């Protein structure tokens, strides 16, 4: 899986609600250790079902790539299924399938991760296979020739023939003028056409080292089980220096940017994006937490401001969303998207004005106690609900660690939220929702041809 919709994945209630020590139930035992070769391991116990998820996260993704080599991390992820010293091409997947495991991988701008969900007694197989392709990836040239065609089909399916995804790719390219976040994770088609197997080999040698990875295990196992197994399968893999990885930093105020895209869509829509810090780059973490709270106030439920004011109240939009991913390696983007209510004859210009009314209101009026209490209630409950899924627990841990934050943040959500004052919300809105930080895309139906 390729997390190309990365920036749209960061809605507060999607990422903020994670298992925790917080009030509602007993803490979930979580252990952290490292092997001598630098592999970091985090084990979270969940004994409800005899099932384990294993996720191996590498600190490499499309934001590490250079022009002309876009799509390299994602293509390497595909080729990780094409054999290693103990396995022929595709064979590891066959072995795992026969064991009833669910397995796959995903790539984003900040990470590449591989996972297996399986009955607990089968975990050693997942670890042995994962260690083998870390240490001895085969990268056969003939397999790559066919696999790059599959990747092009993936791009056609998920980007080129999907107007929304295509628009977002172009929008990102504009909204991140300085950092590697302008690169689409799947890669530009022209770069896919000229990608060489040697580039993938170099990429694997550069970044796939135990000291550049985090192994997350969640489920029905103990720390002692995990230590023994991980040491056994990964312990002998030598550590290796990796290239310097610099945080993707943006221009603080790049200036207002606007684009008009004519795509295969029937209805117009628009994207707004403000250049903002992430939790890893904010001068004070509270700034990023305030932005997360704003995203929740705008779009954290059917009673939030976007649906209640613009969708239902003014009937200005037929749909709208707000997204902010604070858990990034570098500077982030606060994104609003909206579709004008065509049946009511609303225009893109009216929708832009409506979005500005909401943003200006955040600057001028502090959120009400009642509104804040609703967000708090959802966070508290979300901390419990998230524990129902071992996969989402593992993903939260892996993402936090891989972008340079600590998994412990997931257990500190409530206090982080409660530390944000109404004045912080106003200050963040005033600082970040400015025209000099804004990118706007108008997405319009293709004009009728006149030939």
């Amino acid at each position: 899986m390729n997390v190309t919709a990365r920036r749209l994945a960061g809605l507060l209630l999607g990422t903020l609600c994670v298992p925790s020590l917080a009030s509602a139930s007993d803490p979930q035992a979580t252990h952290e250790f490292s092997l001598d070769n630098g592999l970091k391991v985090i084990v979270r116990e969940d004994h409800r079902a005899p099932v384990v998820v294993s996720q191996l996260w590498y600190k490499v993704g499309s934001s590490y790539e250079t022009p002309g080599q876009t799509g390299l991390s994602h293509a390497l992820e595909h080729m990780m299924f094409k054999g290693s010293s103990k396995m022929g091409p595709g064979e590891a997947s066959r072995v795992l399938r026969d064991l009833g495991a669910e397995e796959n991988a995903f790539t984003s701008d900040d990470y590449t991760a591989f996972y297996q969900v399986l009955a607990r007694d089968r975990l050693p197989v997942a670890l042995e296979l994962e260690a083998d392709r870390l240490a001895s990836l085969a990268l056969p040239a003939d397999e790559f020739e066919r696999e790059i065609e599959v990747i092009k089909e993936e791009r056609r399916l998920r980007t080129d023939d999907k107007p929304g995804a295509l628009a977002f790719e172009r929008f990102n390219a504009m909204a991140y003028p300085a950092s590697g976040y302008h690169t689409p994770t799947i890669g530009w088609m022209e770069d896919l056409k000229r990608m060489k197997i040697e580039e993938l080999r170099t990429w694997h040698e550069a970044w796939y080292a135990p000291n550049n990875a985090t192994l997350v295990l969640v489920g029905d196992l103990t720390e002692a089980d995990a230590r023994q197994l991980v040491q056994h399968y990964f312990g002998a893999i030598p550590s290796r220096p990796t290239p310097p990885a610099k945080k993707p930093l943006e221009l603080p105020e790049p200036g207002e940017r606007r684009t008009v895209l004519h795509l295969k869509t029937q209805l117009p829509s628009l994207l707004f994006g403000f250049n903002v810090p992430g939790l890893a780059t904010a001068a004070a973490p509270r700034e990023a937490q305030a932005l997360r709270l704003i995203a929740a106030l705008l779009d954290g439920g059917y009673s939030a401001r976007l649906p209640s004011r613009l969708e239902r109240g003014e009937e200005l939009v037929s749909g709208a969303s707000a997204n902010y991913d604070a858990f990034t390696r570098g500077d982030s983007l606060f994104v609003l998207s909206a579709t004008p209510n065509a049946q009511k004859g609303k225009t893109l210009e009216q929708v832009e004005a409506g979005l500005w009314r909401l943003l200006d209101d955040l600057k001028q009026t502090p959120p009400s106690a009642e509104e804040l209490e609703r967000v708090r209630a959802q966070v508290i409950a979300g901390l419990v609900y998230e524990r129902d899924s071992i996969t989402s627990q593992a993903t939260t841990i892996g993402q936090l660690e891989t972008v340079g934050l600590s998994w412990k943040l997931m257990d500190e959500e409530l206090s982080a939220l409660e530390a944000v004052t109404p004045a912080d919300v106003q200050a963040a809105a005033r600082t970040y929702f400015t025209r000099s930080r804004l990118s706007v895309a108008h997405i319009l139906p293709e004009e009728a041809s006149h030939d």
Partner: protein
Amino acid sequence: MTERTALRRGLLGLTPLLLGALLGVAAPGALAEPVARPALESLAALNGQAPARRTLDIQSWRTAEGARVLFVPAPELPMFDLRLTFAAGSAQDGDAPGLALLTNAMLNEGVPGKDVTAIAQGFEGLGAQFGNGAYRDMAVVSLRSLSAADKRDAALDLFTRVIGQPTFPEDSLARIKNQMLASFEFQKKNPGKLAGDALFARLYGDHPYAHPSDGDEKSVPAIGVERLRAFHAKAYAAGNVVIALVGDLDRSRAEAIAAQVSKALPKGPALPRLPAPKAPEAGTQHIEFPSSQTHLMLAELGIERNDPDWPALYLGNQILGGGGFGTRLMEEVREKRGLTYGVYSGFTGMQARGPFLITLQTRAELSENTLGLVRTILADYLAGGPTQKELNDAKRETAGSFPLSTASNADIVGQLGAIGFYDLPLTYLEDFMAKVQALSVADVKAAMARHLDPNALVIVTVGPKVAQQPLPAPTEKPLEQPLAVPEH
């Protein structure tokens, strides 16, 4: 990461084809270079036992008003899930396509004394999650809440008003209709949706499964509040629902919740069963569309959810194209030729005969030959059946993935909903597993041949008409046996 496991699809009778494509990346295949490799020590060490799964204590009863209840206590987390499944899908639309979906979407738009925003504030202020959705057979309304008494009781109180006393405000209806009209506009540029709609229309003719659940731009504007009220009174009746409950509740609390829900609903019996669809006319329809890929859908009428052949068809399909990687379709179309990102097949067991579907997308200039390739793979499989090794592998996979199918409360409540809705026995999960393990090659071959005819396919293609090119030659390497996967 929203993929469902193959097993969950098998048990629930859902296919990814209707739920959206799997997001796969891996590229398996049993193709291996003929070189000696060290065996996996971890695999050799497995003891060959089928794995255990989470123990489920499924309890069932009927409420005073006749609703079937399925309950599994799960005290580990301080939360519960309540899922109501009504036989109130678009198959009950009658002459108003979209009626079932609109009624379902309008439930939480108003109750006496509360408008839509007040309802949303109510749930969200408690940290509760309200959910709803309407499909062809069923309409679902769900609640997830903390189990602490103050949160639980308040959330249930609001929930029972929403399902029992919706006011269907005119202004909300107008707004939601407008949103549906906007989505119809977007759908006009979605080749996958165009293909799916055309396929169901051809497959089902005048059967109520023929039209899409969201209706169309002619039917939706004509639906008024009175239609919604009448539909609610009949299709949201206590005799027409299955109540599934999982979570931190004891039996008496679960009984009280089920009674409260059931009492809040309109009184009435289950709706009559759907008619059987007539056999469709085989053939291919092409829809011209300016995409870079061509979408291909191949279908036949499949089975009812209670069909005794379901375990054999599930297993047979796992080998053909179910669950992602390592299937015959994926091997031939993606792995050996690089023609597609994904190709999947599946039976959807429904109240009346659901579809058997194969879906894929490929670049337009190869679409006709790719379609020919897929037809050949299907015909060969139906003629020859699976190999003994394929059968053994698929059985092992099914047993191995069993624990994943009931790992979370969300998984369990979904299983209970399906067991209740399709009137399956409480031992259904174990029965299914035992039946799968008892199947022979001949059983699977015969079942597949009983239900599928390679000459009866209804095919829809959506894409641009371009000059066609020959397919690339496949890679052919000797198949290597997987290394010592233990039997169980």
